[in-house]
């Protein structure tokens, strides 16, 4: 059967659609052909798939072929069964007949003959040619058709349909199509069944020696092909999949060693999408096929079907794994395949797959789309690796960027393993020289910024050694030993030896090569190791042999072409990875593009791409990888003169892990920063050094300051610079936590600072701040022209600050400024009055409230009527609040009592200098009391009063003020001002009354003394100097009996002294003298009191002497004694008010009657003796008066004359109020007798309820 392979192949190639046979019985085909073929391809068809499920297919192509056609004739029966798939799937029998007899005699037997073959699916189309207007013909045709139906249609199956040429029925074509479909379906089912049976039969024999894969293949593919023709692509694909599985099993069966294939010219170009690249007959081998070609063939068939199914994604995904597995298969046969066949095949396969799938791919769902792009990226990436490997072999290795990605891809990829490494062709000595020259001219690529890190390897092992080993294995000795002895190959750098040799070694190498390249050297090359240049040339030649694709060869032929291709592949990979959201893959490849851009001087693009890569690595904190790329970025920025970028790159380099660079390198970075900072920059560049310079407040509680106080803030700064660095200026902002906008204050460091590497502590002066708590904000500073800032707090160490930056750090307040509060309190020590006109101690308690009064200065300014006794020192002593101690004592145990009471008493005498006192140091934190000697001055003489009309002395009279101003704080910035009021008073308040009036005219004058001070007064003596008109009854000075004295008066108690006096007869001249209008009471007294409670003995200018020497004080008070008036001359009576009572708002007339009680003789009022001045006074809040409040009324001087004064009043408030009062200003009060005698109250009712206020008129 295998012999049919060629035939099968041609049949398969020639037919790709279903065939419908047309049995043209009545020569009708030419008439209906166009209409029949117009129905093709069938728009919708319903077929059964392999599992007999109904599947709807679209655009089913088919062809109508007459049975007389040569294509359907002359087939051998065996052929027919084998290639059954190409046989007609339906037979349409075209008939016409206009005569019943003709039908019966001719047509019917003929038809019976045609349809007797059961194998065929047939049906009859009766074509009626009768014109529609010809009833006769139409009827006849109908009759014939009816006959036909009776004959050929059965109940099970309609096998007839009628086409009216003149007027076709509307549903004829649908009917026809359904009939064709039915036939096709049935045929298909039958044939599938047939093939399946055959295949099963064959499968059962699989393990037998006679089994032939080719036969199996033909059957299987026939079935698949049939499915494909019927547009049942899924089933076809399944057949191919099964075929592939089966093939792989047979191929892997042990014991059957077969030719692999792949050695023909052009095999290097992958044919995985081109099923027809090689005829199957060429690849058949014994009973099977060559693996190399056949697997590609199977894949290409699968991919064709997948493309038809519009599943380009699946092609890509299957293709990728196919390439991988096939590449492995190639690797196993590497020794028999041409040099680098595997690499070349993978490259071409990837490119073919990429192109095919990319052009066929339509938008899919997002998930699939992502995957598709990922696969494309993978394919590009794979292709790129293999391409780089080839490029390396032909000597472009120096051009390949030694980046992590390239290194990872290439250095773990083993070298090709040909059986024998290719040999330099004999005529290539000139090429070798050229290559050698290139190698020698090559300067080892210097890393930027003087980084001395070893470049990453691109080769799994030294190519030189590998190639020679493969050659040497042929020759007698192993040449590798020769290289092993040379230390330079053992550095493990992976870079080719000659590119990295030191000059002296280079000379050695080149001298050696010169001897080796002497004429005739090549003949014996098998005996001596090849040099690198020779390896390159040999590889190039070998590759030229291998590569049949001119494009690919062109890409490897020159450096420019190589770069073009390299860039294309890299870009393809990067773009697709980006589309698939594999940003890491994509960005890394962007970095490779950047490297090429950089090499070509396209620094702008390079910088952009490098930035992306750096951002990726930096963002994810992969510092090792970042350390590889960042120097390149920095170099780009340096060339582009992007100072800001360059500086920030340098800073980032510095802030990487310390282990990643040598100290020397890091110092170089720093010097770069410094060089730029001190060079002339166009504009000062701001720079973020958050990762490099970090800062934090000192551990421990925050600095606490009172409002308005300056201070110094100590801050820890970590410097990540490898060396000391001088900062020209440095400032830190403080941010208030309560309000971010307002509270930003910059603290400047007063001078330049040198930061050591690591931890530094600096102190900053802190001007007074607003109240609140503050955190450190931003550190800014300047190095040369460079302004830098850092936002970063560091937690404990500087190293891994990057990690910590991710998290929101709870900011710790570094400074707390308290709200303004009382820091000190000044109060007077006593509340009770002091003696006036005597030098007295006034105590001022100075109480610091949790605040030091160090160096405080008190300004004392006394108010009017008060002066400081400057001759005397001021005393200061520590003050213990007794009440406080009492409270404490109650709480504390007896055992603690002594300790708590042991307050060390400080005492110091101070002098006043220009109104200022400086506080001693011991008073910084303890409450102290300041005793200031002062004297209140009052010129007036104390006045006594009568008990009838007691004269209340105004408290203001004895009030004096002391203005105090305390300057304190660190720089005397705090000022506390207070004005203290000190009350001064006389020791006594004197009041008098006539205690009794004796018949003999003696008056007993009682002088009451009220003690005004909180001190015990001792009266030693008292006497009264009487005014004119009074005399003491006893002839003396009116002293009471001395036996009464000393009279002790307790604080705030009273005492009284009686004096007996009598009136003195006055004569006119005495009266005229009027020497003494008032009496004087003299009291000689002593005082004993404590200055802490109030009045106390006056401050002695000298030190107080012994008890006896105590001087007595004299108190003088004036008393006014009045001679009694015996009879008043006027009487004023308040007339009764109306009985209805008073109401608010009601007018009432107040009346007073004035009556003269006796003749008015006094000459003092003689001027207008018949007129009296009156005045009505009332509280204007309570009363409204109408009428003359003040005026003269005439009143006769005769005794008994009377007059009534009335005035209209309106009470304004309800309640008991004092009524208006009538006064007579010109008449002495003693001459008026009033009724009622004293002040009285009247009742005022509230206003009557009235609604008139509410209702508008």
């Amino acid at each position, binding site marked *: 059967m295998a012999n049919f392979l060629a035939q099968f192949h041609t049949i398969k190639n020639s037919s790709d659609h279903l065939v419908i046979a047309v049995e043209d019985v009545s020569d009708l085909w030419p008439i209906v052909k166009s209409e029949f073929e117009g129905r093709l391809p069938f728009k919708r068809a319903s077929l059964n798939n392999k599992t007999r499920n109904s599947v709807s297919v679209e655009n089913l192509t088919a062809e109508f072929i007459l049975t007389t056609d040569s294509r359907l004739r002359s087939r051998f029966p065996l052929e027919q069964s084998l290639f059954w798939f190409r046989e007609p799937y339906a037979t349409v029998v075209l008939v016409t007949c206009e005569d019943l007899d003709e039908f019966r005699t001719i047509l019917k037997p003929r038809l019976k003959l045609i349809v007797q073959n059961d194998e065929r699916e047939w049906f009859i189309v009766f074509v009626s040619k009768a014109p529609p207007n010809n009833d006769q013909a139409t009827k006849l045709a109908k009759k014939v058709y009816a006959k036909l139906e009776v004959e050929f249609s059965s109940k099970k199956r309609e096998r007839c349909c009628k086409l009216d040429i003149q007027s076709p029925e509307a549903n004829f074509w649908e009917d026809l199509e359904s009939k064709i479909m039915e036939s096709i379906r049935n045929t298909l089912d039958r044939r599938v069944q047939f093939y399946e049976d055959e295949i099963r039969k064959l499968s059962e024999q699989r393990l037998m020696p006679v089994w032939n894969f080719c036969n199996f293949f033909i059957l299987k593919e026939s079935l698949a092909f049939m499915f494909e023709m019927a547009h049942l692509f899924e089933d076809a694909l399944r057949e191919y999949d099964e075929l592939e599985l089966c093939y792989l099993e047979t191929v892997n069966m042990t014991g059957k060693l077969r030719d692999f294939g792949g050695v023909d010219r052009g095999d290097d170009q992958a044919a995985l999408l081109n099923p027809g690249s090689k005829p199957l007959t060429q690849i058949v081998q014994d009973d099977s096929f060559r693996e190399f070609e056949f697997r590609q063939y199977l894949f290409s068939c699968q991919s064709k079907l997948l493309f038809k199914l519009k599943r380009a994604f699946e092609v890509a995904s299957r293709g990728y794994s196919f390439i991988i597995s096939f590449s492995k298969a190639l690797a196993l046969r590497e020794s028999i395949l041409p040099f680098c066949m595997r690499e070349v095949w993978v490259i071409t396969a990837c490119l073919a797959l990429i192109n095919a799938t990319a052009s066929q791919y339509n938008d899919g769902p997002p998930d699939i789309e*992502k995957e598709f792009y990922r696969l494309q990226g993978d394919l590009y990436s794979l292709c790129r690796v293999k391409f780089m490997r080839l490029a390396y072999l032909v000597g472009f290795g120096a051009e390949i960027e030694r980046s*992590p*990605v390239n*290194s*990872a891809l290439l*250095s*773990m*990829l083993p070298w090709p393993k040909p059986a024998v490494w290719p040999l330099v062709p004999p005529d290539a000595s000139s090429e070798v020289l050229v290559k050698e020259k290139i190698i020698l001219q090559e300067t080892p690529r210097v890393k930027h910024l003087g980084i001395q890190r*070893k470049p*990453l*390897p691109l080769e799994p092992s030294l190519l030189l050694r590998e190639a020679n080993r493969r050659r040497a294995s042929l020759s007698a000795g192993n040449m590798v030993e020769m290289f092993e002895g040379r230390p330079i190959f053992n550095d*493990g750098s*992976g870079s080719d030896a000659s590119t990295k040799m030191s000059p002296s070694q280079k000379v050695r190498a080149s001298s050696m090569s010169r001897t080796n390249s002497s004429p005739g050297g090549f003949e014996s090359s098998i005996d001596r190791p090849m040099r690198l240049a020779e390896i390159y040339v040999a590889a190039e030649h070998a590759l030229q042999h291998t590569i049949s694709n001119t494009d690919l060869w062109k890409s490897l032929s020159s450096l420019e072409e190589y770069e073009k291709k390299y860039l294309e592949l890299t870009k393809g990979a990067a773009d697709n*990875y980006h589309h698939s959201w*594999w*940003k*890491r*893959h994509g960005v*890394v490849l962007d970095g490779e593009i950047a490297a090429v851009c950089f090499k070509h001087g396209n620094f702008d693009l390079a910088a952009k791409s490098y930035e992306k890569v750096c951002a990726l*690595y930096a*963002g*994810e*904190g*992969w510092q*090792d*990888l970042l350390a*590889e790329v960042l120097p390149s970025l920095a170099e780009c920025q340096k060339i582009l003169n992007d100072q800001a970028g360059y500086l920030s790159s340098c800073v980032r380099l510095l802030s990487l892990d310390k282990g990643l660079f040598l100290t020397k390198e890091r110092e170089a970075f720093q010097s770069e920063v410094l060089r730029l900072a001190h060079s002339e920059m166009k504009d000062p560049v701001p720079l973020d050094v958050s990762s490099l310079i970090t800062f934090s407040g000192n551990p421990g509680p925050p600095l606490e300051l009172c409002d308005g106080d300056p201070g110094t803030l100590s801050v820890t700064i970590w410097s990540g610079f490898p060396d000391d660095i001088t900062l020209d200026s440095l400032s830190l902002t403080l941010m208030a936590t309560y309000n971010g906008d307002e509270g930003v204050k910059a603290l400047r460091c007063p001078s330049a600072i040198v930061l050591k590497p690591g931890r530094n502590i600096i102190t900053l002066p802190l001007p007074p701040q607003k109240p609140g708590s503050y955190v450190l904000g931003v550190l800014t500073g300047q190095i040369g022209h460079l302004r830098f800032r850092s936002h970063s707090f560091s*937690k404990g160490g500087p190293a*891994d600050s990057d*990690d*910590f930056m*991710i*998290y929101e750090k709870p900011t710790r307040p570094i400074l707390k400024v308290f709200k303004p509060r009382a820091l000190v309190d000044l109060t007077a020590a006593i509340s009770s009055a002091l003696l006036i006109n005597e030098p007295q101690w006034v105590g001022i308690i100075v109480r610091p409230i949790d605040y030091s009064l160090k160096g405080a200065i008190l300004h004392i300014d006394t108010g009017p009527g008060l002066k400081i006794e400057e001759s005397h020192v001021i005393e200061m002593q520590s003050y213990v609040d007794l009440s406080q101690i009492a409270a404490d004592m109650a709480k504390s145990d007896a055992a603690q009592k002594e300790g708590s009471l042991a307050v060390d008493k400080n005492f110091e005498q101070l002098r006043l200098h220009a109104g200022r006192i400086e506080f001693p140091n011991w008073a910084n934190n303890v409450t102290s009391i300041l005793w200031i000697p002062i004297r209140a001055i009052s010129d007036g003489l104390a006045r006594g009063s009568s008990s009838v009309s007691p004269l209340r002395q105004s408290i203001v009279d004895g009030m004096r003020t002391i203005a105090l101003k305390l300057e304190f704080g660190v720089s005397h910035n705090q000022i506390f001002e207070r004005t203290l009021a000190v009350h001064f008073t006389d020791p006594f308040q004197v009041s008098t009354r006539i205690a009794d009036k004796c018949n003999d005219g003696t008056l007993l004058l009682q002088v009451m003394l009220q003690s005004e001070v909180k001190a015990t007064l001792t009266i030693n003596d008292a006497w009264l100097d009487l005014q004119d008109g009074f005399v003491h009854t006893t002839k003396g000075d009116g002293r009471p009996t001395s036996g009464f004295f000393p009279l002790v008066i307790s604080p705030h108690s009273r005492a009284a002294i009686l004096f007996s006096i009598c009136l003195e007869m006055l004569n006119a001249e005495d009266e005229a003298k009027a020497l003494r209008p008032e009496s004087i009471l003299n009291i000689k007294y002593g005082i004993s009191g404590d200055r802490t409670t109030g009045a106390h003995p006056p401050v002695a200018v000298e030190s107080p002497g012994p008890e006896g020497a105590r001087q007595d004080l004299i108190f003088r008070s004036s008393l006014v004694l009045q001679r009694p008036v015996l009879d008043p001359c006027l009487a004023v009576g308040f007339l009764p008010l109306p009985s209805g009572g008073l109401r608010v708002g009601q007018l009432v007339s107040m009346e007073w009657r004035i009556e003269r009680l006796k003749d008015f003789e006094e000459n003092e009022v003689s001027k207008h003796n018949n007129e009296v001045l009156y005045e009505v006074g009332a509280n204007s809040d309570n009363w409204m008066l109408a009428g003359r409040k003040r005026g003269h009324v005439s009143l006769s001087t005769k005794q008994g004359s009377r007059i009534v004064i009335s005035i209209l009043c309106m009470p304004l408030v309800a309640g008991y109020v004092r009524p208006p009062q009538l006064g007579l200003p010109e008449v002495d009060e003693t001459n008026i007798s009033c009724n009622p005698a004293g002040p009285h109250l009247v009742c005022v009712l509230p206003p009557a309820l009235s609604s008139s206020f509410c209702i508008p008129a």
Partner: protein
Amino acid sequence: MATTACFIIVSRNDIPIYEAEVGSATKREDAAQLHQFILHAALDIVQDLAWTTSAMFLKAIDRFNDLVVSVYVTAGHTRLMLLHDSRNDDGIKSFFQEVHELYIKILLNPLYLPGSRITSSQFDTKVRALARKYL
């Protein structure tokens, strides 16, 4: 024990917080970088795969020539990634599970800021011991 193995813990922010070369092979000078590169690139795959399964152990997710990347994703999306050349799936799973427990203990330390580098030498010792035991 595997000849080559590189173990990395990657925080949820994609930052490597712990790295260890736990292979028995003598360390190539540049290996750390290449291993890091491979593992970093594998994060792309993890990001796709992690959400497709509820299992923590994602098995081998990437292959790089002879090296395999196995990944274990914790509930907090911390990824334990191992680059290795051995094929001992069960051992790797046990290794991951035990390291996960160690990691949780680290997390429980109130002084450890989640997402910051793990500097505990005890953790390092234990991880290396586990690597010797399982890989």
